[in-house]
């Protein structure tokens, strides 16, 4: 199989890029692919923490670029699943420490070793964004159903198109079915109508995401939560498996009958 380099990006910060990168990396590795997750957020490193690998980081990708270590030395192997590696960002450097050319070279090196190279992009549209995106073939844009996140996603999609990334696919994160039902939150169709881009998955707002971040255990390792299921589905769709979108109302605990149930404590 040809190696695929995919950047996970969003424009706006705090919409779930790192969580998405961690969960998709684990999901793909569990499906038997050789996966490396790169943290491209130099100076604000977090993917190591979300993946629970922070104590095992020795070198980072600036060390490779500057020749302080070999590629293999900087890769942190995840012991919980075969074939999953993390390439951490440098924490004490700034984004100027890498040039676009160096980033392309690094991606090409990793291509030789892995089926999937997933790049966790920093927020913003400056140099850090360009560096994270330049070596990638395709892009996943993460947004939430909020006006600010959707607007930023639109800007990013425009930039990715002009950089000829293809396909560019959208992940809508933190959807709250109750609010959607009441007409107080943009639904999937609204977001797609505004952004005109292909959808690859919808993730319900789910407390389990925060709990998994607390423990450094990505959900796709085995959680049965709705968000975990949604991330696994996206991992499957990435490799061409046709999984229908989840019914976000399935787990709902509100509405008339749920209200009755609560009253009678059934």
């Amino acid at each position, binding site marked *: 199989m040809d190696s695929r380099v995919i950047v996970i990006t969003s424009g706006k910060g705090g919409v779930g890029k790192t969580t998405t990168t961690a969960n998709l990396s684990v999901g793909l590795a569990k499906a038997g692919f050789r996966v490396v997750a790169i943290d491209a957020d130099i100076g604000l490193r977090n993917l190591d923490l979300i993946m629970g690998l922070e104590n095992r980081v020795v070198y980072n990708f600036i060390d490779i670029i500057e020749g302080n270590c070999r590629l293999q030395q900087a890769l942190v192997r995840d012991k919980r699943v075969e074939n999953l590696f993390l390439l951490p960002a440098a924490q004490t450097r700034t984004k100027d420490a890498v040039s676009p050319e160096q980033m392309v070279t690094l991606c090409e090196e990793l291509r030789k070793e892995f089926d999937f190279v997933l790049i966790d992009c920093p927020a913003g549209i400056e140099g850090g964004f360009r560096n994270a995106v330049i070596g990638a073939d395709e892009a996943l844009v993460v947004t939430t159903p909020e*006006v600010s996140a959707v*607007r930023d996603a639109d800007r990013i999609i425009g930039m990715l*198109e*002009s950089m000829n990334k293809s396909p560019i696919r959208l992940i809508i994160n933190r959807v709250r079915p109750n609010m959607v039902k*009441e*007409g*107080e939150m*943009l639904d999937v169709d*609204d977001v797609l109508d505004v952004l*005109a881009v292909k959808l690859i998955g919808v993730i319900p707002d789910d407390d389990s995401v925060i709990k998994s971040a607390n423990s450094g255990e990505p959900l796709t390792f085995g959680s049965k939560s709705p968000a975990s299921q949604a991330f696994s589905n996206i991992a499957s769709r990435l490799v061409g498996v046709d999984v229908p979108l989840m019914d976000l109302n399935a787990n709902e605990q509100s509405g008339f009958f749920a209200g009755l149930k609560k009253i009678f404590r059934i």
Partner: protein
Amino acid sequence: MDFLKRFFSRNSSKDTAKKRLKLVLIHDRTDISPEILEKLREDIIKVINKYMEIDTSNIEMDLDRENGSVALVANIPILKVKRIKQERD
């Protein structure tokens, strides 16, 4: 009560959100300011109104982006085509 409220007022906050987003994105994508766009809209209505009666309250104007280029797409419901007497030169 909530259900009654919803029944009588159709204006939920997501509709406002969508409307505002669409407008601001037109601006973002083209650098055309909302005021100019509003003027353009009025002018288009004026011109079309010369030839046909249109439903001005249901006009949708949108910018579609495809393969790097942007297109102005307008959806203008026609109520009636006016019969225009051909002017003699």
